[in-house]
């Protein structure tokens, strides 16, 4: 048998092997749920939170009906997030509790970690530092080695430290979060803002301003009005500490204009 024949046979075998790959078969219902989910994502990106909530609900309903655990977890978390933005804190709590306390279905630890982080954030928002710490610890427990929300948990902990006026700890955690969120602009900006707050607490306005400038650039690129406003308010504090009353006033004026739009 010649070399050319051998090569031909080998190529044929490779092609046959390629034919043998089995693609995952998904039901029409599952595809429908995926479609609703994707439409919800697009609505969320446009800032149409109510529409996004409706679409996530529809996706969740289908996922519950076909008992798609992954889909249930994803859409419950998304729904909780949207409702939090809509100011429906109680509903957000119920959704997260439903996911975290579900004994019948088994969700992926990554999803449970995300739910726990959201719980921690809710507690923090209500100035419940102890509760926030508890849920942050739970989140860390579910967060395994390759956890994508490790940086978020650090940010939550930094936030808890700030509420406790522990500037050093907040700075340490936020810097760790910065390192962890090198490729995640959203969380990187959060970490920068937290670090800046810690610097301000430590009376280091120059350093705070540098951090805030970077955070502002990221938040503007992401188009997040509430965070831009927060960056400007913190910048105003820094300018005040530096004795630049006029610049501080300008930053507050800019923040006020953004607040007037009532966009989040």
């Amino acid at each position, binding site marked *: 048998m010649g070399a050319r024949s051998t090569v031909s046979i080998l190529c044929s075998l490779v092609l046959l092997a*390629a034919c043998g790959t089995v693609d995952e078969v998904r039901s029409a219902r599952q595809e429908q*749920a995926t479609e609703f989910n994707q439409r919800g994502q697009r609505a*969320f990106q446009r800032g149409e939170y109510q529409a996004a909530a409706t679409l996530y609900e529809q996706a969740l309903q289908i996922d519950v009906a076909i008992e798609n655990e*992954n889909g249930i977890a994803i859409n419950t978390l998304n729904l909780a997030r949207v409702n939090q933005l809509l100011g429906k804190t109680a509903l957000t709590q119920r959704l997260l509790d439903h996911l975290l306390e579900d004994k019948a279905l088994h969700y992926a630890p990554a999803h449970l970690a995300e739910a726990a*982080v959201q719980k921690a954030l809710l507690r*923090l928002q209500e100035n419940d530092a102890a509760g926030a710490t508890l849920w942050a610890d739970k989140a860390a427990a579910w967060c395994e080695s390759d956890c994508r929300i490790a940086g*978020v948990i650090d940010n939550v902990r930094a*936030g808890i430290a700030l509420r406790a006026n522990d500037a050093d700890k907040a700075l340490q955690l936020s810097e760790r979060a910065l390192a962890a969120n090198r490729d995640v602009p959203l969380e990187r900006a959060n970490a920068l803002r937290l670090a800046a707050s810690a610097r301000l607490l430590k009376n280091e306005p120059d350093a705070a301003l540098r951090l805030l400038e970077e955070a502002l650039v990221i938040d503007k690129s992401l188009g997040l009005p509430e965070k831009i406003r927060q960056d400007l308010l913190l910048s105003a504090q820094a300018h005040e500490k530096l004795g630049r009353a006029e610049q501080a006033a300008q930053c507050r004026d800019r923040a006020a204009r953004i607040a007037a739009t009532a966009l989040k």
Partner: protein
Amino acid sequence: MKLPNYNQRLLTIEKRTQRFMLGAVGVMLLVLLMIAAKQDYFSRSTAIYFFTPNAQGLSKGMAVKFVGFKVGSVQEINMEPNATVRVRVSLDDEYVHLIGQDAKARLVKESLVGESVVEIIPGSQQVKQVTQNSVLEFERGQDTSTVVENLAAQLQPILSDIHQITSSGDIQQTLKNLNQASGNFRETVNQFTQVGVNSNKAVTSLNSSLETLDKAVPKLMDKADKTLDNVQSATTDIKKITNDSAGEIPSLVRNANALVQDGQETLGGVKRSWLLNSLFTAPEEQSLPVDGYVAPTQP
């Protein structure tokens, strides 16, 4: 060995040339025959003549018609020593018995812009029929220019009369009076205008508008009528088409639906095929990125 072959080829070429020449001569003869037939060389005919003061409007080959049928043609036009024109006409023998010696030849135009023909005006049936070298009386029919000339000749005296009447003193006086009356009327109108400029303007404008309307309305009505007709026609067509296709629409929709489904299935199949499945990643449900931001409490 080569020479006999060469001679043979020469013979063949000679035969072919002969055939070609014979063919060409045959074609030429055929053409000549056709020309001869066209020129009535094969039909028996009788030559007759007529004389005319001039050859205007006459030409060789011109058709000769009798009660609308072509019965011959002009064969020759010659000027005689006395400066008259002799025209020889060839008549088919088939029709000669219908034309009497007292028939007339008349030059006429078949229509306003048509060709001129020589028309034979039948004479009395009792008179002996024309024979070879018979001479017919000729007259020219009235062409357009003649008609115009006649009309002009008739109008000439009428125009002269009008000129005479209008140049008379009575008419001049009447026109003068009319002019004066017109001036007075204009003055009155001006006074009226000064009294109520606005009203006048309005009236003038209204008048102008009414005149415009007067002119426009009939046109608009006409157009509207046509448009309504078109709309009615289109509606009728649509109604007819709808009625005709009413039974087909549901099946059409079903077929279209089936076609779309087939298309989706085909596309799905293509996407899932091992060659392309790496290009089309199946969409999956995605979770929103977790946001670790907490709005600070307001002091």
